[in-house]
């Protein structure tokens, strides 16, 4: 019988450093499967962020660069402009993309750079051990919002695809989560569409992924998944937020 569930060629055969229950492993795998299915592994260049996914280059079996915190889309721009025939994607967390790198993501999207962004939103700073993220929900406790995030002092959680929607340069913006197999299947469809947009040369595409961070939510993995479903999904609605593929 043919083995249908093996290691994607775009993943290295190694153990990841991600915490138990973390969503990054699933998201890496989906990205790798899509790259395999589109047969673009040998022309794909990824940019890892600063954050938990900085080590993505140890797990993905493709050419990759590490970018300074938040500058990931600028690095991707430099690569894509001098190698327009390559497929270039950034893989960024909420701190990298929606806090320190807000300027870069907005202008890269606004220029309509023909790149793809995988934006992982877990509502917390994972690598630095649980501080408030720009996407931390109101009332959510983190190590820097010990009494829960208050809009009055810490502002509101940022909805990135909705924010980017108005930009002419954006072609495809979607949001999904990894909390259930059904969602994972849809997520894969979205990520594939996002890469397709780039292959067709249409412009900027981004898929946000709501991902559980059990360790920094101080929850066990099952409760963390439930937390995403009950708290994040209502604030961050799932679906295609912009689809100008037509």
């Amino acid at each position, binding site marked *: 019988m043919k083995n249908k569930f093996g290691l994607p060629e775009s993943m290295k055969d190694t153990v990841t450093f991600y915490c138990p229950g973390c969503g990054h492993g699933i998201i890496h795998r989906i990205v790798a499967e899509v790259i395999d299915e589109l047969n673009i592994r*040998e*022309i794909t260049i990824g940019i890892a962020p600063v954050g938990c996914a*900085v080590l993505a*280059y140890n797990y993905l079996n493709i050419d990759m660069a*590490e970018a*300074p915190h938040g500058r990931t889309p*600028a690095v991707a721009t*430099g690569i894509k402009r*001098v190698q327009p025939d390559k497929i270039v994607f950034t893989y960024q967390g909420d701190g990298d993309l929606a806090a320190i790198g807000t300027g870069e993501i907005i202008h890269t999207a606004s220029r309509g750079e023909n790149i793809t962004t995988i934006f992982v939103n877990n509502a917390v700073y994972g690598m630095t051990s649980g501080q408030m993220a720009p996407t931390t929900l109101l009332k959510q406790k983190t190590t820097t919002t010990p009494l829960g995030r208050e809009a009055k002092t810490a502002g509101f959680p940022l909805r990135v695809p909705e924010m980017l929607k108005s930009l002419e340069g954006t072609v495809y913006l979607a949001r999904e989560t990894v909390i259930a197999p059904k969602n994972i299947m849809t997520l894969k469809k979205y990520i594939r569409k996002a890469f397709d947009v780039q292959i067709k040369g249409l412009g900027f595409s981004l898929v946000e992924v709501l991902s559980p961070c059990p360790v920094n939510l101080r929850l066990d993995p099952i409760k963390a998944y439930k937390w995403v479903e009950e708290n994040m999904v209502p604030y961050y609605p799932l679906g295609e937020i912009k689809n100008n593929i037509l």
Partner: protein
Amino acid sequence: MKNKILISGNEALAEAAIQAGCKAYFGYPITPQNEIPEYMSRRMPEEGRVFIQAESELAAINMVLGASASGVRTMTTSSSPGISLMQEAVSYMAGDELPCVIANVARGGPGLGNIAGAQGDYFQSVKGGGHGDYNLIVIAPASVQEMADLTFTAFDMADKYRTPVIILADGYLGQMMEAAQIEKKAIQSIKKDWALTGAKGRKPNIINSMYLADDALEKHNQKLQEKFQKIKKELCLVEEISTTDADIIFVAYGTSARICKSVIINLRANKIKAGLIRPITLWPFPTETIKQAALHAGFFLTVEMSAGQMVEDVRLSVEGKAPVYFYGRMGGGVPEEEKIIELVEKLHRESK
């Protein structure tokens, strides 16, 4: 372009970068270097190359990082405050071992300062600028011709040593117009098998500066330091004028050196034997040249458009073998010949 043309320093640098094979330019407007992005916005598309006006200096230098990681020659330019903004990525590129050229058409500081030429960015350029243990090759032109010639050198050195190179000019050199010849030169072609071009028929290439395993970062640092030592051994550009018989030796670079050249002629007419050591590479610094000169010189006078930065390296090179004096102007002020001559005559009298 076989004949000399009248051209500004900024434009000479820009055209030289194109002739040196710069495939991608990324910049952000800031005075007094705006002529460079303006020139590039026209010329780069003409050559079928990449020009982007970035949203900030942060974005510009990180686009440079991406282009360099792709294996092409790439450059950004800015002026002092913009160069400060770029320092994080410069440190990354030093750690990543990525070649690039960064021109700083420096202006008066600190802070927003002003838009006149200044040399207050010496420490930033030569002593590191960003975080961590690293050096940059720093090249200081002193004429429009050198703004062009040393740009070729900068690209060659960046590729040869896989490291960022800073061209440290100033607003006066950027804005002044002189006759210069910008010729296409043979480009040193260096194989960049480390570049990110897609993992086709090979293992993936990774460009990174993070090393978490035990001792891994120290080993990486040792490798970098070996490279910096090699550069120190192999690369040092310096101009010496009338130093063999000089009692008084000026040490000055860039615009300050031009003024000193004129001072020397005046002093020699008054029977005061003066000479000049002009570092062209500020890093590596011409320590040996200065050390040798210290064996016969009466005293040194370092002239800078700063509060006294390079003078520290001159003192380290002289090793106490001769007095080292300093004359400087700050905040865009330019050393005046008369003032320098006055000071030299006073010091000369006192030293007798």
